[in-house]
C-alpha cells in the first residue's frame, strides 16, 4: 500500500476513534446528569445553598463567568491548533494556551469546592450538594484530561499536517467540554 493510503487510513481510524470516545463521554456525563434530573424531579425541596442566602457572600455570577471564559478560551486556541489561518510552525504555542486555560478552570473548580466545604457544605450534607460535587467534579476531571491531551499534542514530534489533525480532534473534545459545562451550569444554578 502506498504511504498516502496508509496515512489516510490512520487518519480515518483516529477520527472514528475520537468520535466514539466523545460518544462514550456523552453517555457517561449524560448518565450522571440524568441521575441528577431524576433526583431533583423526585424531591419536593431542593436546597442549593445559594438559594438560601449564600450568594451574597459568594459572587456566583463572576465565578461562572470565569470558568465559562476559560473553557471558551481553550476552545478558541484549540481551533487555531487545527491550523486554520495560522503558520503551522507556531502551533505548539497554542497548545500551551489550551493547557493553561484548562488548568485554570480546574484550579477554580477546586477552589470553589474547597470554599463550600469550609462552610460545612460538604457532599454528605444533602443530595443537592452531592449532585453539585459530582457534576462539577466530572467536568473538572474531564477538562484536566483535555489539558493533558494538549500537553501531549504540544510535545509530540510529528509532521505539521499530522499535528494539525490532532489539533482538530482536540478541538472537538473541547467543544464537548464547553457544551457539558454549559449544561451543568444551567442544570445546577438556573433551573
Amino acid at each position, binding site marked *: 500500500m502506498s504511504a498516502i493510503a496508509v496515512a489516510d487510513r490512520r487518519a480515518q481510524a483516529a477520527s472514528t*476513534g475520537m468520535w466514539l470516545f466523545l460518544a462514550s463521554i456523552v453517555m457517561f456525563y449524560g448518565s450522571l446528569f440524568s441521575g441528577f434530573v431524576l433526583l431533583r424531579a423526585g424531591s419536593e425541596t431542593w436546597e442549593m445553598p445559594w438559594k438560601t442566602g449564600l450568594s451574597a457572600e459568594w459572587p456566583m455570577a463572576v465565578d461562572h463567568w470565569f470558568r465559562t471564559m476559560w473553557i471558551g478560551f481553550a476552545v478558541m486556541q484549540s481551533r487555531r491548533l487545527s491550523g486554520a489561518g495560522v503558520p503551522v510552525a507556531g502551533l505548539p504555542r497554542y497548545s500551551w494556551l489550551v493547557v493553561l486555560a484548562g488548568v485554570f478552570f480546574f484550579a477554580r473548580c477546586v477552589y470553589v469546592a474547597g470554599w463550600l466545604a469550609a462552610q460545612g457544605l460538604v457532599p454528605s450534607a444533602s443530595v443537592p450538594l452531592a449532585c453539585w460535587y459530582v457534576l462539577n467534579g466530572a467536568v473538572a476531571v474531564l477538562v484536566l484530561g483535555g489539558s493533558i491531551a494538549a500537553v501531549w499534542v504540544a510535545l509530540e514530534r510529528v509532521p505539521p499536517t499530522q499535528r494539525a489533525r490532532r489539533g482538530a480532534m482536540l478541538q472537538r473534545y473541547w467543544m464537548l467540554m464547553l457544551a457539558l459545562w454549559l449544561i451543568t451550569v444551567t442544570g445546577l444554578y438556573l433551573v
Partner: protein
Amino acid sequence: MRLSDHKTIGLAYGVTAAGFLVVGFLLMLLFRWQLAWPGQPMPIATAIFGETNAPGGILLPEFYYQLVAMHGTVMIFLAVVPFATAGLGTYLVPLQIGASGLAFPRLSLLAFVVYAAAGLLMVASFAMPGGAANSGWTSYPPLAILASSGQTAWLAGVFLLGVSSMLSAMTLIATVVAHRAPGLWLRRLPFFVWAQVVTALLLLLAFPALQAAAVFQLMDRVAGTSVFLPSGLAVSNVPLTVSGGGNPLLWQHLFWFLAHPEVYVLVLPAMGIVAEVLTAHARRNLWRYGLMVNAIAALGGWSMVVWAHHMLLTGMGTTMSTFFQITTVVVSVPSVILLTCLVVTLWGGTIRFTTAMCFALAFLPMFGLGGVTGLPLGLAPSNVILHDTYYVLGHFHYLVAPGTLFALFAAVYHWFPKVTGRRLDERLGLVHFAGSFVTMNAIFLPMFLMGLVGVNRRLYDAGLQYELAEPTLRWNASMTWSAVTLGVFQLVFLWNVVRSARRGEAADNPWQATTLEWAAPSPPPPGNFVTPPVVSGGPYRYDEERA
C-alpha cells in the same frame, strides 16, 4: 511474539478470561455444595476459607452471598464477556477483514492491562476485611452501600472494566472502519464482524451508565452522601446517620441500562460465531445475510430501551411499566428473525457433525429455550409470580451457559487450527460435547420447575425454611452432582487443548472455510497475510460448491 500484535492481545484475553471462567465455576461449586446439603459441613472448607467464613466446615451465610455475588460478577464481567468480545474480536476481526493489525494496538494492550488489573482487584477482595462484595452481581442499594469494603473494590473494578471495554470497543470499530482489505465492502463482511461491531457499540454506549452509577455509589460509600439512600432509613431499628433524600431506584435504572445490553453483549458474538460455524460445517451460505445484519443491528439498538423490564415490581407506575413491556415483546422480533435465519441456513446443507458444529447446533435450541422463557418475565402479570425465583436463574443461564458458553466452545473448536495450526481431537471433543450437553440440562431444567413452585433465588438454605420448597429440596443434590460432572467433562476439554496444541493433527484450513481469516497461514505470522488480500466477493462461497 510482539506484545501489541492483535493475536498476542487476543490470546492474552482468551487465556485470562478462561482462567476467570474457572474461578467463577469453582465459586459456583462451593455454593452448590451448600445448596445440596444445607448446613452440613464441607470437608476441608475450614482449612481453605478459615474460621471466619466456614467455622466447623459450614459455610456461613455471609460467605455464601460473597460466593454468589462473585460468581455472577466473575462469570459475566470477567469471563464470558471479555472472551466473547475483546478475546475473539481482537484475534479474529483483523484477520476476517484482511488487515495486518489493529487501528490502535497500544490502546488495545492498555485495555487488556486495565481489564486484568480490575479482575485481580475484584477477586483479591475476598482477602479484604469482611470479604468480597456480597450484595449480588446487581449491587442494589441500600444493601450494597452498607456492605463491607469488598463492595468498594467491586465498584472500582467495574469502573475500570468500563474504561477497558471502551478502549477495546473503540479499537475494534476503528479497525473495521479504516483497515478493511480493498474490495471488502460493508456488505461483504463476515457476519461475525457485524456481530462484533454491534457489540462494541453497545459496550461503548451502555457501560458509561454503570460507571456513572459506580461513581455515585462510591460517593455514598466513601464520602457519606445519600444519592441512593432514602430518608428515614434504619438498620436493625437504629436510624442511619446520613442525610437521606436519595433514590435507590436510580441505581437500578443506571445499572440495568448497562446490564440489559450486557446480555446482548454475551449473545450477539455468540450468534456471530454460530453463523460462521454453521455455514462452514454445513456448506451453506448464510440465509438472508442482509436481513440478518439488519436484525442484529436492530437487536443491539433496541436492547437499549428495554432495561426497566427488570424493575416491573418496583412500583414505577403503569405508564412506565406498559412502555417497557411493549419494548420487551418487540425486542424478541429481531431475535426470532436471527434464530430462524440460522436454522434455515442448514436447509439442504451437507452437515458435518464435527464438535464445533455440534456445539453450534446445540446453541440453537438452548438459546431458544432461554429466549422463550424470557417472555413471561417481560410481562408484568406473570413477572409478579416469577420475579426473583429460580425460574429467572433457569431463564438466563440457558442464555449464558448452554447458550453463549456452547457458542464459545464452538468457536474454540472451529478456530483452534487457525491459532495453533493444529486440530483438536474430535473424539475427545465429542465426549466433551455430549457430557456438557447432558449435564447442563440436568442442572438448569429443574430450575424452571423450582421457580414455578415458588422457590426464591439467593436463598442460603435452598428454601429449607419454606414449606413450599419442600418437594424441590431433593433435586438439589442431583443438580450439584451434575455440576461436578460438568466440571469433569471440562477436564477432558482442557486435556484436549493442552495435548492438541502440541501434538494434534496439523491442519491449515481443515473446514475448507471461505472467510478471509483462513486465507492467512495458520498460525498467522506477524502482519497476518503473506500477500495482502484483495476481495472480490461475499464471505460465504459454499453454495457455489454445489453448482
